C-alpha cells in the first residue's frame, strides 16, 4: 500500500549561531514510511532525536536534507519544501500532531480549543462543539471544565485537552509525542482505544511511547532512531 507519510534521506543538523556556530547533527538519512492504518513507534534512547524527527515530520522543524512526503488531497506534498500556505492546508486536512504540551490560548474555553480544528475543516459550529464535548467527556474531563480556558488545568488535564484536539478531526496522519505520559490507568485505556479506532479508520500513526506496555499494545512495528556517533 502507498504510504500515507514517508521520509526520503531525511537529515537534520542544528547550527547554534549564538554558541560560535557549533553544529549538532541529530538525524541522518532517515527512511521511514507508514501506511494507512499502521502504527509505528519510534524507539531509541532519550536524546536520540525521536522528538526532532516528529517535529520534522510535522514541518515544525525544517529539514537539512531530504524530504517528508505526505499524501494530501490525492498527491504527495513535501512538507520540507512546500510553502507556508500549503503546509497549513496539509495540517488542516491531513496531518495532526499531539505534542506533550498544550499551547494555551488566553481566554479560549477548552471545548472551543478542541472544536477549532473541526470548524477549520468546515464543520458547523454546533456540531463541532458537540463532537468536542463528547470526546472530552470520553477522556474523563468533567463537563464543568469544558467552558474554562485550560491555563489552570493540571498537566494530565491539559494533556487530555491536547489529545482531544488531536483526535477529534480524524486526520489521515497522526503524530503522537508521549500521548500517555501524565495519564492515569483509566485514561491510558481510553487513549489506547482511540488509537485502535483511528487505525481501523485508516489513520497512519507515528508515536513516541515512553510507556512500553502501551507501545506494545498499539504499535505494529518499531522504528529505531539511533543517536549519531559524531554528535558533539
Amino acid at each position, binding site marked *: 500500500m502507498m504510504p500515507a507519510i514517508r521520509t526520503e534521506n531525511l537529515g537534520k543538523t542544528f547550527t*547554534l549561531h549564538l554558541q560560535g556556530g557549533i553544529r549538532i547533527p541529530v538525524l541522518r538519512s532517515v527512511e521511514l514510511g507508514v501506511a494507512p492504518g499502521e502504527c509505528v513507534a519510534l524507539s531509541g534512547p532519550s536524546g536520540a532525536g525521536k522528538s526532532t524527527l516528529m517535529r520534522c515530520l510535522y*514541518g*515544525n522543524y525544517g529539514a537539512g536534507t531530504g524530504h517528508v512526503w505526505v499524501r494530501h488531497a490525492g498527491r504527495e506534498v513535501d512538507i520540507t519544501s512546500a510553502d507556508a500556505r500549503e503546509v497549513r492546508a496539509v495540517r488542516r486536512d491531513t496531518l495532526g500532531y499531539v505534542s506533550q504540551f498544550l499551547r494555551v490560548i*488566553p481566554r479560549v474555553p477548552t471545548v472551543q480549543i478542541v472544536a477549532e480544528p473541526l470548524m477549520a475543516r468546515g464543520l458547523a459550529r454546533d456540531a463541532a462543539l458537540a463532537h468536542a464535548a463528547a470526546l472530552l467527556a470520553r477522556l474523563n474531563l468533567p463537563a464543568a471544565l469544558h467552558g474554562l480556558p485550560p491555563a489552570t488545568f493540571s498537566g494530565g488535564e491539559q494533556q487530555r485537552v491536547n489529545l482531544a484536539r488531536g483526535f477529534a478531526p480524524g486526520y489521515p496522519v497522526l503524530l503522537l509525542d508521549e500521548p500517555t505520559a501524565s495519564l492515569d490507568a483509566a485514561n491510558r485505556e481510553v487513549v489506547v482505544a482511540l488509537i485502535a479506532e483511528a487505525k481501523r479508520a485508516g489513520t497512519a500513526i507515528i508515536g513516541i511511547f515512553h510507556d512500553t506496555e502501551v507501545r506494545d499494545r498499539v504499535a505494529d512495528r518499531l522504528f529505531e532512531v539511533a543517536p549519531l556517533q559524531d554528535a558533539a
Partner: protein
Amino acid sequence: MTALMTARGLELRFGAISALDDVALEIHPGEVVAIVGESGSGKTTLLRVLAGMMPPEAGQVLYRGEDVHAMGEAARRRLMRSDWGFVHQNPRDGLRLRVSAGGNVGERLMAAGARHYGNIRTEAAEWLQRVEIDPARMDDMPEKFSGGMQQRLQIARTLVTRPKLVFMDEPTGGLDVSVQARLLDLIRALVAELGLAVLIVTHDIAAARLLAHRMLVMRHGQVVEQGLTDRVLDDPQHPYTQLLVSSVLAA
C-alpha cells in the same frame, strides 16, 4: 489562489540608513502575516510602504494586480475606505477623540455612503459589543476610555466596513500585559471569523505566535528569514532570528 498583495524589490533609504533593502512579500486572502524585528529594523516603514502611506525609492506594491503607488491618491484613499484598514499603535492616531464612540465606528460607514442614522447606530452598537465595549457607552467620548478600550474601539472602527486587508502597527504596544492578552484574543477571533488578511508589525514574539500563520523577520531593512510561524520560532536558521527567539522569556 492569487495573492491579495504582492511587493517586490522594495528599497528605501533614510540618509545612510537602509530602511528597506530589496524586500519582497506576498499576502493571500485570509492569511495573517507578522513582521517582527527590533526597533529600527524597518518593519514599520515596510508597513507604511505597503499601505501606500509612503512611497518606496524602488520596487512595486501590487494590490490585486494594481500598483498601489502608481494609482493616485484618490484611488488609494478609496482602498483605505473600502478594502483596507489600518490599526495604529496609538489609538489616538486612529480615533477621533472628540467624536463619540458610536460616531467613530459610524464614520467609516458614512464615508462608504451609509445615510441611514438608525442603521448606522445599530451597526455601531453591534460592533461595540463585538469588541466588548458596553453599547450603553456609545455616546461617550473615547478620551474617557481606558487605553485598552480605545484600542478595541479603533479595531471596531476599522473592521466595521469589513475590509479584506488590515495593517496593524504594534496594536498591543502601549498596553498592560493583562489588557494585551484580551486584545490579542479578540483580534485572533475576529480575524478568523471575518477571514481577514492581516499584516501585523510587532516586536512581541508571543503575540506573533498566537496570531500569525506566517512570519517575516527583519533586520537592517532586510527580511533575514521567513516562513511558517512555528517553524521560524522553533527552528530559527538565521543568527539574528536565533538571538531574537532566545531573548524571549518562555511563556
